[in-house]
């Protein structure tokens, strides 16, 4: 019985500040550990303070800015194409029978196969430029939107379509007033996931095609054995990724406030 009461004690709803304290403690623990381990690890690791100094230096001497601009260009192009292509292919998969019947297996193969392996193909066809990088980045990040939109468009209840048909709506009205609004939350779920995935795609494309942006700095750091530089850029990218995940959630919450709880 005593054991049971102890368990119940654990299950008691804790105030928010305990939760917040746990979060802070975990971040603090990590940073402290980093500083401690980094101080006497030799050339392959750098303590937190050195890393942050390096980040400031890299920003001040104009290394980070241009690299971010290069990567940013790929990122923005990728996300834009993801949106257009993802919505187009997703709707087509769901509402055009012939398209789904003939292309669905190939869409799935492209999704499940390791996209990195297609880098040489993209290079052979498009060369070393931004085009090839964006193609690879899109192939990595577009499928969350495709599958989400397709699932949304497939799950429109029959009765909505029947009502629209009863009231004699035209094809265009049907799309504008029924299908697109219904698909919108599904689209935003896909977009929320695509926002960080496009960053993954950007980095992969840079690593393998032309290491010119942020990834270029990472590879430079590794080949020159500059641990502080590698860590500084990694921290920057991680912070960026976390911010982007937050932006994705915010966008979804702002545009479809009625449905941010349905999936996790």
């Amino acid at each position, binding site marked *: 019985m005593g054991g049971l009461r102890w368990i119940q004690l654990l299950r008691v709803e804790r105030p928010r500040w305990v939760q917040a304290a746990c979060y802070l403690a*975990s971040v603090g623990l990590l940073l402290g550990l980093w500083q401690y381990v980094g101080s006497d690890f030799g050339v392959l690791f750098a303590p937190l303070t050195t890393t942050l100094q390096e980040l400031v230096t890299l920003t001040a001497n104009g290394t980070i800015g241009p690299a971010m601009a290069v990567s940013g260009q790929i990122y923005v192009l990728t996300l834009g194409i993801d949106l257009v292509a993802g919505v187009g292919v997703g709707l087509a998969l769901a509402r055009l029978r012939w398209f789904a019947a003939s292309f669905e297996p190939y869409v799935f193969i492209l999704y*499940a196969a390791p996209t990195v392996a297609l880098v040489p193909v993209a290079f052979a066809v498009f060369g070393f430029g931004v085009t090839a990088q964006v193609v690879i980045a899109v192939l990595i990040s577009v*499928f*969350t939107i495709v599958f989400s939109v397709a699932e949304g468009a497939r799950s429109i209840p029959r009765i909505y379509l029947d009502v629209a048909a009863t009231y004699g709506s035209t094809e265009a009205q049907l799309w504008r007033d029924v299908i697109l609004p219904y698909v919108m939350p599904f689209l935003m779920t896909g977009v929320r996931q695509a926002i960080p995935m496009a960053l993954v795609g950007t980095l992969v494309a840079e*690593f393998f095609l032309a290491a010119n942006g942020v990834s270029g700095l990472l590879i430079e750091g590794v080949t020159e054995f500059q641990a502080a530089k590698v860590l500084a850029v990694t921290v920057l*990218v991680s912070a960026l990724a976390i911010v982007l995940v937050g932006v994705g959630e915010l966008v979804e919450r702002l545009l479809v406030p009625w449905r941010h709880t349905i999936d996790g």
Partner: protein
Amino acid sequence: MATHNRRLTLARAVDGLPSIGRRALWPVVTGLALVVVWEVGARARLPAYVARPSGIVAAFPSVVTTPLFWADALSTCSAIVEGVVVGTFVGAVLGLVMGRVREVGWLLAPLVRSLYSMPLIALVPIMVLWMGYTQTARLVAIVVAVLLPVAVSTSDGARLLSPDFLDVGKVFRARPHQVWFGIALPAALPQLLAGVDIGIGRAFTNGVAVEVLASVTGLGYQLFDEAQSLRDAVSFVYVIALAVFAIAARTGVRMLSRRLAPWYRPREPTAPGRLRREPAQVVGA
């Protein structure tokens, strides 16, 4: 109208086929069309070294009969299998603890979740820096790629399990280890397997990334090496090999999930077979 009728006749003719033939017909036709477009397009517009179907078919037997190919395949696949097993085990234990012990969840969730949503490829350079240009770096990169999604989704599954299950456990006086491994683990199993599915996809990307960046022998390294020597047809055989291995592994995990947890329907990236089967309706008709 004429085209409409013709399409109807075609549809009826297709419907007359046995079901497997009917389902395979359209993809096969499309596949052949894509191959023809690729062949003709590459011949017409692209330089000679770019891979085209005829070249790939010609290169295929000579590549898959070399011992090098099988040595590379063995090297990459055994690293992936080893990494997936270790990553799944560690990730599942971590996820269970994070999901069932709330304080541990609060402490670790921010770290694990932010690592999970981070582009793991950005960590590959550090791993190479620390572990050198070795197979260990590749293994660790694969383990991390599998561990994080497994931990995150297992902890979700273990945390959100139905209170009814726990009540039944309480009524039958289940011991803590029985609650953990008899109730929480099976209940979280489908999420765990969904995590493994995502993890395998990332494992291939990370494995290839380390092979290329750190010159570790394997399918990925050889793939890029052949492409750099402008033997794109040979390189594409390696692309096919990697894709076949990755898709086979993921399909295996999905089948396992369907066998072990038939009630579970994942919401996101779905295999074609799992999407709603009713035909897309002709809207407004």
